[in-house]
C-alpha cells in the first residue's frame, strides 16, 4: 500500500510546472521516482480513473489531474458511474 506515494506523484504533477513537463515528456520515467505497487503504476500510467479513485486517491487530486489530461466532466462522471 503506497497511496501516499501515488498521491504525491499526482500532487507534484498538478502543482509544479517543471514536474509537469517532466511527467509529460516521459510518464513512466517520472513514475519511477515514486514507490508504487504494480497496480498503482498501471492505474496512473493508463489514467484509469476508476482504479485511481478506488485506490483512494483524493478526489481533489484526481479531478485536477484528469483535467490536465483534458478529461471532460461527462467522461469523468462516466468513469465513476455506480461508485459511492
Amino acid at each position: 500500500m503506497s497511496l501516499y506515494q501515488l498521491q504525491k506523484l499526482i500532487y507534484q504533477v498538478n502543482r509544479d510546472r517543471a514536474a509537469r513537463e517532466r511527467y509529460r515528456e516521459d510518464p513512466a520515467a517520472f513514475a519511477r521516482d515514486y514507490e508504487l505497487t504494480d497496480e498503482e503504476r498501471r492505474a496512473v500510467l493508463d489514467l484509469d480513473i476508476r482504479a485511481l479513485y478506488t485506490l483512494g486517491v483524493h478526489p481533489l487530486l484526481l479531478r485536477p489531474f484528469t483535467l490536465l489530461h483534458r478529461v471532460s466532466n461527462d467522461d469523468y462522471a462516466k468513469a465513476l458511474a455506480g461508485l459511492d
Partner: protein
Amino acid sequence: MPIVFACAASHAPGITAWTEAAPREQAEKVLGAYRRLAALIEAAKPDALVAITVEHWANFFLDHMPAFCIGRAPHYEGPIEEWLRIPKTRVRGDVDLASTLIDACLEGGFDPSFSDELLLDHATMLPLHFLNRAMRLPLVPVILNTLTRPMPTPKRCLALGRLLGEVLESSRKRVALVATGGLSHWPGEAKHGKINVAFDRRFLETLTAGDRNRLADYSHEAIDREAGSGGHEIRTWIALAGAVPDRRAEVLAYEPVVPWATGCGIVAFSL
C-alpha cells in the same frame, strides 16, 4: 482603520473554466453578484485584502498539513491550474499586515504556521480575479485546512475569525476581508454534481439571522454528511462571520448550479 469591506463567496472553478456549461440565468446571477462585490470593494477603498481561504493541494501535502497557515510572502503566484481560464499572474503580498496577524495569533492563543512562499489555486485566484482587478491590492492569505481530516473545528475557526477581526479593526490599514469556498458540493467524487439546497439555505439563514454562536454548532460529521467534502469550506465563512460579528449578512446570490457542481453563494456583510 477598520475592516472596510467583508464578503464571502463560492469559488467553483466552473465559474471561469466552464462558465457556459451553466444555465445562462444562473451564471448571470452569480457573475452579477461577483460584479456587485467588485463595485462595493472599489467603493470601500481598501489598502489590503485579507483572504480567509483554503487550498486544493497547491502547497501542503500529507507530509505537513497545517490547520491554519498565514502567508507572509512579498508576492504569490497563481493559479496553478492551466485549465482555469484565469491568466497566471503575480499578486503582491502585504508582509507587514501578515506579520501583525501572525504575532496577534501567537499572543492570542492560536499557533498558525506561516509561509514566505505559497502558490495560489482557484480557491484564492478565482475570487481575486473578480474582486482584485489588476491585482492592485496586496494580499494576506489565511489558509484553513478544509481539505483532509482531521480539520480545525468550526468552533475553532469562528474563534480564529474573532481574533483576526479584533486585530484588523484596530489596524492602521483599511482592510477588505474575503472568505472563499462552499457551499455544499462533492468535488471530484462519484457524487460530483450533487447539491444540498436545504443545507445551503439553512446555513445562509443562520448567517443572516446574526447569532454567530450558532455557527459554532456545526460539526465535522454533519457538514461531511449534508454538505459534502467541499462543504467543509464553509469554515472560511464561519471564520469571517466571527471577524465581523455585528454586521448584517446580505445574500446577493444563491444558485445551485449543477454544471458547476456547487451550491454557489455570494454574501456581503454591510457596514
